[in-house]
């Protein structure tokens, strides 16, 4: 009796795990199945690389891919120094009190809802950009800046984690040789923490690529590849959010599944890359 209850529990646990795995795979399958008509209609490659012109029957998502990169890359580039500097202060340069306060601040930032960032962005940042640089204000720049602040806490947490997990023996050795705090950071800790920090960077970039609300609210959503930071752009994610209203069987609607597949592949690549790097690091050590 007791043994059978143990077996039942084990099977329940197992089924739950399987259910999770099935959901993950079915997300991809769903999108492939529903996007299929689009791939049949236009050629496989033109979906990814072609222009968007519904009047000509062209449903390429290239402008959205370019728009995504235009917003996500500057955001990561902006967030990198911000996070690097703050992580240095949190782990090494700051006093113990300041470290604690900054730690709380960064954790607090992870709890700020994306939509609230977007809301403040619209009413605070967009008017500033409009007055400072002209144009509509809703542009790549506005989205990138807010996105940079949004992903910074993720990066900071990963960076400070890698920095503090460097073997203290190595750090002590450098200390005994007369290296001061900054020297220890630059010549001992940083090289050792580099792998872990790269993981954090990639994951933060994945987050920037996958964010919907910031771009949707701040980037202007024009379906045209932007040529500068002051131009509007539409990301893959925003495209999915916006096409929703259209007729379910139209090719225009089908294009959002291509966007979904592209996003799935982007983020999965990032996750697999990080895993691979972690694995390689563990082998080296």
């Amino acid at each position, binding site marked *: 009796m*007791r043994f059978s209850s*143990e077996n039942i*529990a*084990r099977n329940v*646990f*197992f089924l*739950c*795990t399987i*259910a*999770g795995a099935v*959901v*993950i795979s079915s*997300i991809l399958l*769903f*999108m492939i199945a529903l996007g299929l008509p689009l791939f049949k209609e236009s050629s496989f490659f033109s979906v990814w690389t072609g222009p968007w012109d519904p009047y000509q029957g062209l449903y390429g998502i290239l402008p959205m891919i370019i728009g995504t990169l235009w917003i996500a890359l500057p955001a990561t580039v902006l967030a990198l120094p911000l*996070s*690097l*500097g*703050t992580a*240095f*202060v949190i782990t090494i*340069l*700051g006093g113990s009190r300041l470290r604690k306060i*900054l730690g*709380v601040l960064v*954790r607090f930032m*992870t*709890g*700020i*809802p*994306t*939509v609230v960032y*977007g*809301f*403040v962005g*619209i*009413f605070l940042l967009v008017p500033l950009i409009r007055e400072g640089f002209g144009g509509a204000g809703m542009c790549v720049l506005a989205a990138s800046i807010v996105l940079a602040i949004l992903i910074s806490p*993720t990066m900071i947490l990963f960076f400070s984690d890698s920095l503090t997990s460097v073997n203290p023996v190595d750090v002590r050795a450098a200390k005994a040789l007369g290296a001061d705090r*900054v*020297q220890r*950071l630059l010549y001992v800790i940083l090289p050792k923490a580099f792998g872990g920090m790269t993981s954090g960077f990639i*994951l*933060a970039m*994945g*987050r*920037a*690529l*996958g*964010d*919907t609300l910031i771009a949707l*609210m701040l980037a202007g959503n024009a379906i045209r590849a932007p040529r500068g930071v002051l131009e509007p752009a539409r990301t893959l994610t925003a495209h*999915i*959010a916006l096409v*929703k209203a259209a007729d379910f069987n139209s090719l225009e609607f089908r294009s959002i599944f291509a966007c979904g597949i592209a996003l*799935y592949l982007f*983020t*999965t690549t*990032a*996750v*697999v890359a990080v895993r691979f790097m972690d694995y390689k690091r563990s082998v080296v050590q």
Partner: protein
Amino acid sequence: MHAVAEKAVVVFSWAMTIVLCLCVSIFLGYLLIHGLPSLGRDLIFGAADPLRVLLGRARVFDGLFPAIMGTLFLVILSASLAVPVGVCSGIYLAEYAGAGMKKFSGLLFDILAGIPSIVIGLFGFSLAVFLHNHLDNRFGPCLLISSLSLAVLVLPYIVRSTQTSLEELPDGIRRTAIALGANKLQNIAYVLIPNALSGISSGIILAIGRCAEDTAVILLTGVVAVAGVPSSLLSQYEALPFYIYYISNQYTNPGELSGGYGACLILLGVCAFLFMSAYGVKKHLSHRTLYRA
């Protein structure tokens, strides 16, 4: 030469920290200045009598009450879907799965954690359409579909936090009950789970915070601007984050706009509270569970 570079690193780090703090203070200050005046009974209940509203005798037409209730329902429903499944698979992965299974499913859940929430929303939307066409045409984007999608969204948090907090338990605790004649299930139920509870519950709190905050998933799966308090699982509903999004590009007068600021403050307060208490419950919460769009 080196000395200059070292000085530069220090200056750079402090400058960046100050910039970040400035950004956050401006952000918060701006929100507080515009949002605080609007906070009050009217913001939530509008012109209706709060008591009558809470008893279900009156409807709120110009307040946040339906949106708050919608978000509350969403959170409760998705948590009750995701928590049992997530905790069970966490237990399986930590205590039963072999090395290969662990690696494989670890990768799967990492991938799920990385999928943008809009893609999960799209999945939910397709599911609703699929059910509508093949099962019953009463199905459509609704509260149930949204909760289901949100449950998928937060599943990896719960699985991961359960799994890691079980795996982190020291051998001493792990073998105590075994040596006293406990079978595996008894050991898990009486010893391992109680000792890992702080980690597991912080994962659950985080998941709840994510459910309350997410906009992209519900955007595609049934949230609307005006629906009143949801009456059934298959009805459309209002939600706080969507209200904020909606106001930001559809507001018609300053009153609505200041309601938007008020909603921002409420949502920010709830989410910040949930996230901070998740960190409080377990000090060294792995932030690996945090990254996602």
